[in-house]
């Protein structure tokens, strides 16, 4: 596979599991978003040839994304390439509905559908929240960016040409990524494959802990570097460090896909 094709494939996985996937935390962290999500209960399959095949589930105000597991869906959307799916995410194309054509219109056919409202609103927060120093919007932006970063790490570690080298080396076990006393997510390594669970690890083998939302925000926005934060104690790494050393190599690649 050419480098361009591989990058498009990786971007498609990141777009589904990190960009769309972060809706899960958006509706948890924002009451208004939760109310919007509550308007629709639906199971949608995004099926991308040579790319992700996943489920997006709206259920009573909660949202989740997961790999397609064979269950019955309300809508089955198909894209014939990762590039096409990436265009869908960039609002430049529509997927092909293989099932549920009318439900598709209600799901993403108009700007006021819950899915479209939520994705637009979250994009706006992620884009504009960075600049709103010290505001709740910036805090929400940081939290969502934190989860998007964690979700992207696994996809990049599984798919990117360079990311795969580091991902395959990560020892089995759970890496706990935390904003101290605030947010937590888990990267799970198993047999060289990575998954992200947007919940605190119950059995972590290694830890990457930001001391505050401010530090997490500054790091995510690229205003400070991780190594300096380690020196100053703003970022704590402990446990089985080789897992984190390899994870950091993937972390270096995240901005390429999540900028």
């Amino acid at each position, binding site marked *: 596979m050419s480098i361009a094709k591989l990058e498009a494939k990786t971007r498609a996985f990141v777009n589904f599991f990190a960009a769309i996937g972060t809706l899960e935390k958006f509706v948890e962290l924002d009451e208004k978003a939760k109310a919007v999500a509550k308007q629709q209960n639906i199971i949608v399959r995004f099926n991308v040839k040579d790319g992700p095949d996943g489920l997006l589930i709206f259920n009573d105000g909660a949202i989740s994304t997961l790999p397609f597991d064979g269950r019955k869906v309300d809508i089955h959307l198909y894209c014939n390439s990762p590039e096409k799916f990436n265009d869908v995410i960039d609002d430049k194309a529509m997927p092909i509905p293989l099932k549920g054509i009318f439900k598709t219109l209600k799901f993403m056919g108009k700007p006021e559908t819950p899915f479209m409202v939520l994705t637009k609103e979250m994009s706006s927060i992620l884009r504009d929240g960075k600049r709103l120093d010290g505001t709740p919007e910036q805090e929400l932006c940081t939290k969502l960016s934190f989860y998007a970063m964690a979700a992207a790490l696994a996809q990049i570690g599984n798919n990117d040409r360079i*990311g795969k080298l580091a991902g395959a080396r990560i020892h089995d076990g759970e890496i706990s990524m935390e904003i101290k006393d605030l947010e937590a997510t888990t990267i799970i390594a198993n047999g060289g494959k990575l998954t992200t669970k947007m919940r605190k690890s119950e059995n972590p083998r290694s830890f990457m802990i930001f001391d505050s939302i401010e530090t997490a925000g500054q790091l995510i926005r690229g205003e400070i570097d991780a190594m300096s934060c*380690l*020196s*100053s104690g703003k970022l*704590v790494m*402990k446990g089985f*460090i080789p897992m*984190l050393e390899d994870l950091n190599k993937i972390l270096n690649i995240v901005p390429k896909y999540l900028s």
Partner: protein
Amino acid sequence: MAIEKTAKKETYKYIQSQKTMERASKVVPCGVYGHLGPAEGCMIPTSAYPFFLSRAKGSEMWDADGNRFIDYMCGYGPNVLGYCDPEVDEAANKQMTLGNCTTLPNTIMVDFAELLTDTVRKDWAFFAKNGGDVTQLSIMVARAHTGKKKIIFVNGYYHGVAPWTQKPDSPGVLPEDCRNSIYVNFNDLDQLTKVISEQKDKIACFIATPYMHGNFKDNVLPEDGYWAGVRKLCTENNIVLIIDDIRAGFRLNLHGSDAHYGFEADLICFCKAIANGYNVSALCGKNFLKPSVSSIMYTGSYWMSAVPFAAGLVNIKKLIDADACTYFKKMGTRLTDGLTKIAATKKVNLSISGEPAMFYLMIKDDNSLLLHQEWIAECVKRGVFITNHHNHFINLSLTEELVDETLVICDEAMDVMVKNHPEVYN
């Protein structure tokens, strides 16, 4: 033990160190970059460690806050006689008055080359400054001599930080930098035989440390017959056998670690302990490689500076006179035997591996190493400077009294760790 066990009321604080780190972070990448810095995974948690020293002497050092430590890192190896050894420093100071970095090399370079080659039983010595300078040169010599490209590495290796020593996912490294790398497992002659049979016309060299003194895992000594087998395979297939003795050199055997394990390397790289902290490294080799190394344009502004040669001359003579490696083994054994006993009484599964002169520690009661990191942190905060996941070093100034004091502190620190974890140690 010579020193009674007494509990310390307070552990160390690092106010000046942290203030200095704040200043450093503004003007130096990472504050302190590289292996001396807290970002490299050997100082966990960073809050348990000082970042800056005010002075060091013998086996002890005092940080920016005045806290005293018994130091088992020895500058990560260079401190082999003891910090600020008076005879070495006197020779260096005297040479400084005669000239250091000069237009032509001082004759003392030849004196040092003669002593070094005689000591390590090689035919020539090429001087540079850091370990990476000479591992890089060793690869170039191997390629120049054989006309072949590929390098065999042993998994878990460390040979410096140049791109060819890294993995292609490291920042700043290209996949092309690693295209000629082959990776094999230590102590696996069958695998090495297979790799060589498949690619012998492409393989320029085999580079390895004399034993595996890597991080985050038990250190591994060579099995019987391993090095003899490697030597034979290299000789039969026109592959240059390079020993990276930068860390272990002058700690196991003054003739070189190849001599220690009963074989002869074609090229051997020295640095850390060669001049007791004065900056010089050396690639030493056999005569058949002298034309190749001579053909390579390889130089640096300070590589023939005279002061480190003066220091190195005294350093090596003192190591020989003191039968230093025997002493390192004896003191390393005294310390590790003591630690083993302490751990056993508390039912802590402490693994001690590697050579006694460069012992490696790891508590294996959890797979996250958190218990180990907690114990080490408690040791450091009480005045024993050891790191979480790196081998340690014995130096010639370390006394039995200091070792025994170390054991008292490590014992107390382990008590603290054990008491904090009744769920593990009940």
